[in-house]
């Protein structure tokens, strides 16, 4: 036990040599990479498979497509199979239809003769290919850009409003001593830790009374004030020394100027974290938009994805493609901002 703990706590003193604790650490980390990235990579690869390829068991790692051949007298191209057993062994045949254990096949060179082949005796002729139609079909069947715009609009506007409103409140709660401050703080956080889900019914009524149903604002406004935001920012702003404020006041700076010229820049790391959290929350939001937005024109990507799941049942090919498109933007944001996310959460969330 002692050694195990040692390996986790000590930081390697010597340079160059790797001892067994390092090997174990790297082993754990690479396993982590596999477990964390593996599923997403698998999703990505699968999303480029044709529906037929997706149904295959056991699945292949890379997407393959069956070769097809156009035969006279048949409108659509027919899939090609190599026959690996039975009386027709060695021939390459095109399949007309397959039911249960028997397939009806023809030789492309001699399309009039129909052959009955046991399904165990045939093997598809395949090559590596990306089924990009999974993606292009999405754009044809759905107003994808509209959903994308809705999601983006909600995310950007809601994040902006939330940052402004929350940082103002956090400023008041951290830098002013006024009667009722503790009450406000306690009330705000105590009440708001109650998740939106449990007050769904009254929230719906209020949003309706404000005439915001079926509008993107109905998603944006109710989510704009979050306890986490106020709390996170306040905790950070408390650490900014009051002397800076006093010095600014001596220079006759207005309170608003102090707020946005001094406090906001100094709180940048915390604001960055909150911005990222807000983007994540709004982009991934599901239940509330589901209730507020009922017109397809107003659907967000998440709603479209879910309704797609419902309508297409187990038609995985398009569903997986849509999943990839939904996670792509957030993955990009993450790639560009990951340094800020990490340091930001480290500096604020942990304190």
């Amino acid at each position, binding site marked *: 036990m002692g050694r195990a703990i040692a390996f986790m706590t000590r930081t390697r003193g010597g340079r160059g040599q790797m001892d067994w604790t390092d090997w174990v650490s790297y082993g754990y980390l690479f396993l982590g990479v596999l477990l964390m990235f593996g599923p997403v990579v698998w999703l990505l690869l699968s999303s480029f498979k044709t529906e037929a390829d997706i149904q295959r068991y056991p699945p292949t790692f890379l997407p393959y497509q069956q070769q097809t051949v156009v035969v006279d007298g048949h409108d659509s191209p027919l899939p090609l199979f190599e026959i690996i057993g039975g009386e027709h062994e060695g021939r390459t045949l095109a399949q007309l239809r397959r039911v249960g254990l028997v397939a009806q096949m023809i030789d492309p060179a001699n399309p009039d003769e129909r052959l009955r082949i046991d399904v165990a005796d045939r093997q598809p002729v395949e090559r590596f290919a990306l089924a990009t139609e999974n993606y292009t079909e999405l754009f044809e069947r759905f107003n994808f850009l509209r959903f994308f715009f809705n999601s983006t609009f909600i995310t950007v506007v809601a994040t902006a409003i939330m940052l402004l409103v929350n940082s103002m409140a956090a400023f008041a709660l951290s830098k002013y001593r006024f009667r009722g401050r503790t009450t406000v703080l306690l009330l705000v956080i105590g*009440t708001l830790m109650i998740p939106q889900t449990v007050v769904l019914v009254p929230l719906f009524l209020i949003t309706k009374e404000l005439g915001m149903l079926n509008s993107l604002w109905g998603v944006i406004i109710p989510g704009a004030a979050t306890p986490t935001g106020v709390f996170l920012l306040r905790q950070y702003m408390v650490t900014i020394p009051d002397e800076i404020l006093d010095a600014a006041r001596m220079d006759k700076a207005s*309170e608003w100027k102090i707020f946005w010229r001094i406090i906001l820049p100094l709180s940048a790391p915390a604001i960055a974290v909150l911005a990222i959290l807000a983007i994540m929350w709004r982009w991934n939001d599901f239940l509330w938009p589901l209730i507020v937005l009922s017109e397809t024109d107003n659907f967000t990507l998440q709603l479209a994805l879910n309704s797609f799941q419902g309508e297409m049942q187990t038609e995985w090919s398009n569903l997986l493609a849509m999943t990839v498109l939904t996670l792509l933007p957030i993955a990009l944001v993450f790639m560009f901002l990951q340094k800020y996310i990490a340091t930001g959460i480290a500096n604020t969330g942990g304190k």
Partner: protein
Amino acid sequence: MLQIISPMMRIIEIPMQYAQRKFGIQRLAWIFLLPNLILFGLFAFLPVILNFVYALTGGDNVLLNARPFVGGANFDTLTACASYFDPNSCERDFFWRAIHNTILFVTLQVGFMVGFSLLTALILNRDIRARGFFRSVFFFPVLLSPVVVALIWKWILQRNGVLNAGLDAMGLETHVWLLDRTWAFAWSVFLTVWAHMGFYTLILLAGLQAIPRDVYEAALMDRASPWRAFTKITMPLLAPTMLVVLVLALIRSVQTFDEIFAFTGGGPGSATTFIIQYIYQTGFAGAPRLFGLASAASIMLAFVLVVLTGIQLWINRRNVDG
């Protein structure tokens, strides 16, 4: 970015300067608070109050004036149980199933979550090459939407999915994972840990890095054993962060909904139906829609959450002010 913000801020400055002249600096705090308070009031306080009204009324009408007053009847039926340990003996058996499921889920999930986050943070805190890369890898799933997370794992775990293929290839027994009550529950725990542990790892890692190196070096000089260094230095210094992580994970865990809803739909049967889903089903997906019962259940849940939040606040206050 700044080009948009600056002019906007300048515009707001005009009324704010006026307000400052009129009310003075200290009372200006309320102006700063005002927009937030309005939003809180409308979308948080008011719903909570209305929620109580719903909880005390019956029927299936959403409009308050059309709902008959029933007093504590909703609470009575929810708590009517011969034995709280046996959901079958309760009048509202689904509610108690959801509670039992939630308690077991929270215990397991928070345990694994904190355990793995701590282990990962400790390893990442070592002198590791490409630490930034590994840290991002563990954090990445946090960003995925619940629907996406659920779909990814549904895809892997389906009857002909890659996991069964792998087990088959190794000659092991395959399962239709999500049709089995125990497995569906286990995978629900796994899925939520997978999706969220990066967040807690990051917080713990920050806590670890805030421990000054020279403390360890001093311990090393004293020839303290690594175990002693861990129990006497790391753990006590990390304790406040650990507490924050624990409480945060607890609060979030109790509220688990979206992922599981998209993952198993609460099934098979009610094996993965947790408390929020019970509320959603009773109030929104049911027929008739028993808003009163749903509100009563949500008030009972809210009570638990407020207690948990109180603990968190108390810890935070001790950390920040103390």
